[in-house]
């Protein structure tokens, strides 16, 4: 039977999943992005120095990541080297984003697939306290505290107005946590709401606000540094940053990571489900020099094929191409070709069913997402890809956290190739990153203490210093995976702009060869106990942390007319 799930909630954006289910298992799947804005088209003919402000609006959940990739693309095109301080401020903003985003994803976007809120009412608060104290030093762990959370939840349920929790799949047999673990999850759902609000003040200090920090510049940052001025990042502000980072370290190490491992220990069957493609890619990121040399990356890049961790290949952005065989666009040379972003073209042509519709026409075109491929391979990007690449390339920090997590769960490394592996990798990555952030803050402080307050390189600020034509590539390992922006600058303005984003890699449709995208592949074999309550499908889809606003984009490098768009 065919099931369509639309809207997929607890994600960013508009995602529709259709699956074929036989004998209680998914036998085939189609992933469709159902919203289109066309921000790259809007970028054409604009000042390349403005591009990051526009590009940042590609997404407000993974806010800031497109701003970073955008300024890097323009800097790459113009040959700009940014100052140390600008790199460090960018690293702190991006790293804080990664940590905050991972925590919010687990508690507020993903946990309700594993935690049955209603069962928390049946918990013994004393048992929850005992459990909490056995897995963590987190101070909010008394019986009284959990009793208070439970009372609050009971009062909320008693009102009969269940709000965002109404019509959840509560009581579904796939929920297997004991009541006390559910209560722990509910308590930390609420605590994480408060924590994320506090932690992200790092962005306000260094970027003016969040969402959509506003301190990027082509050539550096606008974050004014001066230890002795009230109006800038000064000694007082540095001290607040250090406090916020400390609270981040405490929360990840004492709440997020222990919760993930505790909950995962009840769901080990999900370490054999949802593996999908088995191909993993990352560009790598967080360079320690200012020329973005890959050998200085804190997160190493690379390509793993067929789960083979012993043969990591180097990546090269020239190997990226995009297909529209099953996407609502046409290519001039036919839809069987793949095009590199610098040569890319897009003519949107909606050939889906006329709304309102019940099912997509999945044999033809069925998504606003294109299908990116690396050297022809469908690949998965994201925290799992990064952690596998770091693990396989003997990164000591990553290996230590990964090995510790695997031994606590009493599973081998192969368990990582799964839905549960994605959840665990995200928590592991947050732990690795939150431990690193104080190092970068310390380097910034050291520079400022030496009187180095440089934050921007003005050499190529004036467009009269630019070449007549230039091409640039900007990358970032965003929370959801490998992000690339490609820019073509001509006569001082943007001639072409393209973004190939993590969720396009993961949520994209089939390509010319019929290869499924990462979501589609991972869903094969997923159990579906009750088609009316497809919580198992949500588990695997959410394990990728979908971000669909990011994923749908279109560019038009050749000035094609759009008058031919029509609903067929």
């Amino acid at each position, binding site marked *: 039977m065919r099931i369509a799930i639309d*809207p997929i909630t607890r994600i*960013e954006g508009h995602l529709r999943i259709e699956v074929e289910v036989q004998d209680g298992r998914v036998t085939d799947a189609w992933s469709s992005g159902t919203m289109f804005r066309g921000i790259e088209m809007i970028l054409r003919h*604009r000042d390349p120095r403005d591009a990051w402000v526009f590009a940042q609006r590609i997404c*407000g959940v993974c806010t800031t990541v497109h701003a970073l990739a955008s300024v890097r693309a323009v800097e790459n095109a113009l040959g700009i080297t940014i100052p140390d301080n600008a790199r460090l401020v960018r690293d702190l903003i991006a790293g804080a984003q990664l940590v905050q985003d991972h925590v919010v994803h687990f508690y507020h976007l993903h946990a*309700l697939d594993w935690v049955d809120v209603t069962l928390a009412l049946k918990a013994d608060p004393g048992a929850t306290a005992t459990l909490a104290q056995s897995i963590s030093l987190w101070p909010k762990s008394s019986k009284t505290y959990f009793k208070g959370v439970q009372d609050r939840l009971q009062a909320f349920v008693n*009102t009969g107005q269940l709000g965002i929790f109404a019509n959840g799949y509560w009581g579904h047999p796939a929920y297997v946590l004991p009541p006390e673990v559910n209560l722990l999850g509910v308590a930390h759902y609420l605590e994480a*709401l408060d924590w994320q*609000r506090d932690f992200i003040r790092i962005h306000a200090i260094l970027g003016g606000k969040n969402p959509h920090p506003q301190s990027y510049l082509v050539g550096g940052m606008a974050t004014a540094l*001066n230890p002795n001025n009230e109006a800038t990042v000064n000694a007082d502000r540095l001290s607040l940053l250090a406090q916020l980072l400390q609270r981040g370290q405490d929360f990840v190490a004492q709440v997020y990571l222990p919760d993930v491992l505790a909950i995962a220990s009840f769901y080990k069957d999900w370490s054999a489900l949802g593996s999908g493609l088995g191909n993993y890619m990352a560009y790598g990121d967080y360079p320690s020099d200012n020329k973005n040399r890959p050998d200085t990356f804190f997160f190493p890049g690379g390509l793993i094929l067929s789960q083979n961790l012993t043969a990591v290949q180097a990546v090269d952005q020239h190997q990226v191409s995009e297909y529209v065989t099953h996407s609502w666009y046409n290519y001039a040379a036919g839809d069987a070709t793949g095009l590199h972003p610098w040569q890319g073209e897009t003519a949107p042509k909606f050939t889906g069913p006329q709304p309102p519709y019940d099912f997509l026409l999945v044999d033809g075109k069925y998504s606003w997402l294109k299908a990116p491929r690396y050297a022809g391979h469908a690949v998965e990007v994201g925290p799992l890809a990064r952690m596998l690449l770091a693990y396989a390339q003997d990164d000591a920090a990553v290996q230590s956290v990964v090995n510790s997590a695997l031994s606590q769960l009493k599973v081998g490394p192969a368990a990582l190739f799964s839905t549960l592996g994605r959840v665990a990798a995200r928590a592991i990555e947050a732990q690795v990153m939150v431990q690193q952030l104080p190092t970068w803050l310390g380097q910034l402080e050291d520079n400022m203490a030496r009187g180095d307050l440089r934050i921007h390189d003005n050499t190529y600020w004036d467009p009269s210093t630019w070449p007549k034509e230039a091409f640039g590539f900007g990358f970032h390992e965003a929370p959801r995976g490998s992000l690339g922006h490609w820019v073509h600058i001509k006569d001082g303005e943007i001639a072409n702009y393209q973004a190939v984003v993590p969720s396009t890699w993961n949520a994209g449709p089939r390509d010319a060869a019929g290869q499924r995208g990462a979501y589609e592949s991972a869903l094969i074999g997923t159990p579906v106990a009750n088609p009316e309550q497809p919580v198992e499908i949500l588990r695997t889809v959410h394990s990728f942390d979908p971000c669909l606003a990011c994923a749908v984009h279109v560019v038009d490098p050749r000035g094609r007319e759009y008058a031919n768009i029509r609903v067929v």
Partner: protein
Amino acid sequence: MAEHEAEQEHVLADGVWAALSRRGISRRDFLKFCTVMTSALALPMRYTPRIVRALEQAQRPALVWLEFQDCAGNSESALRASHPTFADIVLDLLSWNYHETVMAPSGTAAEKSLHDTITAEQGKYLAVVEGSIPLAYGGVYCTIGGRTAIDIVKEVCGNAYATIAVGTCAAFGGIPAAAGGVTGAVGVGDAVPGLKLINLSACPMNGANLAATIVHWLTFKELPATDELNRPLFAHGDRIHDHCPRRAHYDAGQFVEEWGDEGHQLGWCLYKMGCKGPATNYNCPQIQWNDGTNWPIGVGHGCVGCAQPQFWDAMSPFYRTLPSVPGFGVETTAEEVGLGVAATVAALTAAHAVGSAVRQRRAAKSQAAASNTATPPVTGTSQALSATASDAVPVTAGSASAQTNTEAKPADTPDEQRHDTQEEGAQP
């Protein structure tokens, strides 16, 4: 007296305050929150007791949050609200029945939550809209559950007590409506004319202003007073320039001349680096962001004018200095500065539009959206263009709700002036 107290006790047992007290919120914290709200709403402090009383008594009205051509930045901004917090609002102040980004159910179960609210709470719930609504090609650029955005917004907003458009996309079309866009994106007011509508513009809107709008509704049973763009006066009544902590540097002629120069390190005025604060109406400098931690000018980057309609086209290039305004220095009044800037921005808007029919249509549509709900429905280009000529609507400070805000004054804004300068042709 005793009887009154007993009644008060009864109210407390059922009201929002009861919910808050069950959460362990102290009476002192509750009163502090009410005071913060009074301040955020730019009300005199004598209104605090009224807010306290209202929140003590309020039941939890329903709210549904729709997302269309959006980036979820406004959802995230709501998550950052601190007085009250998102948890306070969602669990205690309102019955937050539908919001794709955070709700538990998906698919048909999620749609049931929406349908149940529309039928059971018809005419009583608040609809929040995030993201623009694409009208081109039958609306195929955004579908949810197989339905188009415009189909959904007509039903959900049409049956609501009122609609709050959060962010510049939902208010005025925003980035999908910028020049170069092909999806026919418009704001809610343009998509469904005639709604009772509040536009919380900015990219994203500040979560604190959403919280304040909701509290205003709970307190006074009606929406806050607005300017001619349906934006609440408490948030959009004043120019950023007028409240900027760097204003003294502007008046003294102390400007950042280059990124990272000495003036930049001393927190001087960013006007010459392209700051759009003199042309933007928002309470950014007063309430700031992320629990009052900072704001864009505070970090050292200029304002990009994100609270203004069409800012993606009218305010860019973002690093171009606003054309010279008459008479720098302490002798110049804010009104004079604003007048000059508004005229120039209007001229820029027009210049930007030359040679682009698409862009002209966008501007016309946005102008139509910008005018109040008395504007006729915009269904085609010619009508949209005629709407442009008629957009010099009188400043009514919103609806009857203006009466509730005794401090509210008519907007004396660059927008209003811009409209005046753009007026050409006769009123219909």
